[in-house]
């Protein structure tokens, strides 16, 4: 059985879903559980093709509830398990993810956002931001990476496994239909060769020894009898979560801490935003900057506040009706920088639109 599909550095030209399947193999994921939904299907298609070659497993479940809960099972058994979904499937995933959130079970869920609400379109959107960051009946103790390119998909799937198992909070790779289906180039590599150490999973259930004899039994629960018990559990989660924020937060920027007008976007839209800012800078506009939160949860609150305190205007562009906008407003509460928006639920945003908006509001 071959060991790794990638050695050295390899430039490839493929769909994002294919990139993810490779990244999962290279991250030493053991098993994928999944239920089909466009636009994430090809992750499963490629995984099932790769799986037998590298000693990996796959289970197609009866629905997303099952995909989420079997993934939790796989993790409990001490394996690196993951799953992928989109849209209405992500809605259903909130049930298992709320259990993972409560019990600090590391899970990796890849979301390829599609239009919403409801079944909507199978194509593209950024309308699953609120749900992925704060979904379910919980408090959003999760880590969400928003990717913008195939390179990101490769890098952050590998990183996402490490994050999940290191910090034990449910971790999400938030992609979208464009990234899922488009082809572009990216460089694949063996993480070990780049000095990236892969966090090893440990079993939560079925560790060696007889429980109650050689070791304590592993008794895991998510249900409590009194509100005081629960309060303590949730406050401890909050404390643990807040402690890791500085280590986890990621962002990208260009001239953002010097600019008068900062364009903020995440995911694939950030490419148009970055392109627009580069174009404007090249045209001689000096006071324009670009900021892209990579982790949508936790958000780079400190940097956003610094920018908001300095800048005169923000332009927030997203393919939703203001899901990132809401979070940014909350993050920079107390400042009063002028905010302009390009909100286009379910459709792409181009560089031209952003440039035009800049000229309109500047």
């Amino acid at each position: 059985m071959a060991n790794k599909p990638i050695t050295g550095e390899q430039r490839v030209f493929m769909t994002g879903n294919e990139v993810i399947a490779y990244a999962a193999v290279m991250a030493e994921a053991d098993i994928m559980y999944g239920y089909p939904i466009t636009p994430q299907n090809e992750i499963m298609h490629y995984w099932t093709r790769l799986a037998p070659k590298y000693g990996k497993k796959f289970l197609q479940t009866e629905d997303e509830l099952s995909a989420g809960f079997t993934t939790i099972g796989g993790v409990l058994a001490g394996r690196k398990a993951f799953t992928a979904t989109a849209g209405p499937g992500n809605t259903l995933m909130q049930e298992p993810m709320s259990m993972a959130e409560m019990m600090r079970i590391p899970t990796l869920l890849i979301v390829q956002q599609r239009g919403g609400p409801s079944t909507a379109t199978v194509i593209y959107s950024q309308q699953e931001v609120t749900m992925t960051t704060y979904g379910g009946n919980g408090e959003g103790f999760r880590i969400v990476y928003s990717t913008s390119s195939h390179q990101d998909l490769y890098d952050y799937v590998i990183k996402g496994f490490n994050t999940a198992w290191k910090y034990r909070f449910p971790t999400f790779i938030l992609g979208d239909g464009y990234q899922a289906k488009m082809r572009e180039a990216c460089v694949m590599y063996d993480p070990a060769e780049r000095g990236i150490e892969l966090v090893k999973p440990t079993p939560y259930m079925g560790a060696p020894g007889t429980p109650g004899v050689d070791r304590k039994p592993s008794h895991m629960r998510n249900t409590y009898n009194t509100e005081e018990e629960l309060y303590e559990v949730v406050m401890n989660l909050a404390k643990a979560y807040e402690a890791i924020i500085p280590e986890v937060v990621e962002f990208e920027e260009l001239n953002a801490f010097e600019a008068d007008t900062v364009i903020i976007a995440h995911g694939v839209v950030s490419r148009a935003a970055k392109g627009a800012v580069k174009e404007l800078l090249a045209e001689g506009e000096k006071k324009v900057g670009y900021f892209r939160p990579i982790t949508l949860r936790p958000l780079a609150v400190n940097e956003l506040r610094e920018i908001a305190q300095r800048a005169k205007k923000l332009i927030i562009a997203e393919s939703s009706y203001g899901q990132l906008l809401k979070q940014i407003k909350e993050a920079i509460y107390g400042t009063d920088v002028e905010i302009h928006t390009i909100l286009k639920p379910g459709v792409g945003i181009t560089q031209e639109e952003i440039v035009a908006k800049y000229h309109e509001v500047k």
Partner: protein
Amino acid sequence: MNYPQIPKSWNIESKPHKFCPGCGHGIALKALGMVIDELGIQDKTVFGVDIGCSLLAWDFFNVDTIQTHHGRTTPVITGIKRANPELITIAYMGDGGGYAIGSQHLVNAAARNEKITVILVNNTNYGMTGGQMAPTTLPGQKTETTPYGRDVDETGYPTLGPEMVAAIAREGAYVARGTVANLRQLKGFIKKAIENQMAGNGFSFVEVLSGCPTNWRTNAKETWDFIENTMTQYFKVGELKVPGKGE
């Protein structure tokens, strides 16, 4: 002798357990505990408990135990088994968890012949939430959501779970219905179900007819009577599917 005669695999720290006085769950879990002892599998067993009164068993055994969501124990246990087939995995749930909210999982795990064991406690109602109708509620039976008695014209007949599972599962599966009123037999069924998993044959399923005196509002005599005489009229006790024995 200050140490009661309880199965070795029981966790004495959590006793008396959290079930109501006279609850059948305690008897079912006694049978299971005895089987775990007899098979000597305490170190390899993973126990999953559903939401429903089953959850009260989250620290019942000295066995690694995961308390899951309502209806979701089948997929959690399936996920564990798929990831580590060395483990012996048991899903424990109520009739609501198994036949209502988790029925897609039960049906599909049976169809895929998952190598897991499901023990389902049929107490003809939703015990934990205070006694609503379950898929297994008997015709005419009063519950909190059938205050005038279950009307079969409106809500159909009680679900026959093992019969349904037997209709879906194929060769290799083990399916039986036992009762807390016959511990020896029940223990035998559970043992075969777990051995069937250990042999790698396939899905194993045991429904347990059980009592819920709290919601039935029955005294001990009435409880036994309902289990032994009323329930068994609808729910036939016995083995429905034994690998190698045809059907």
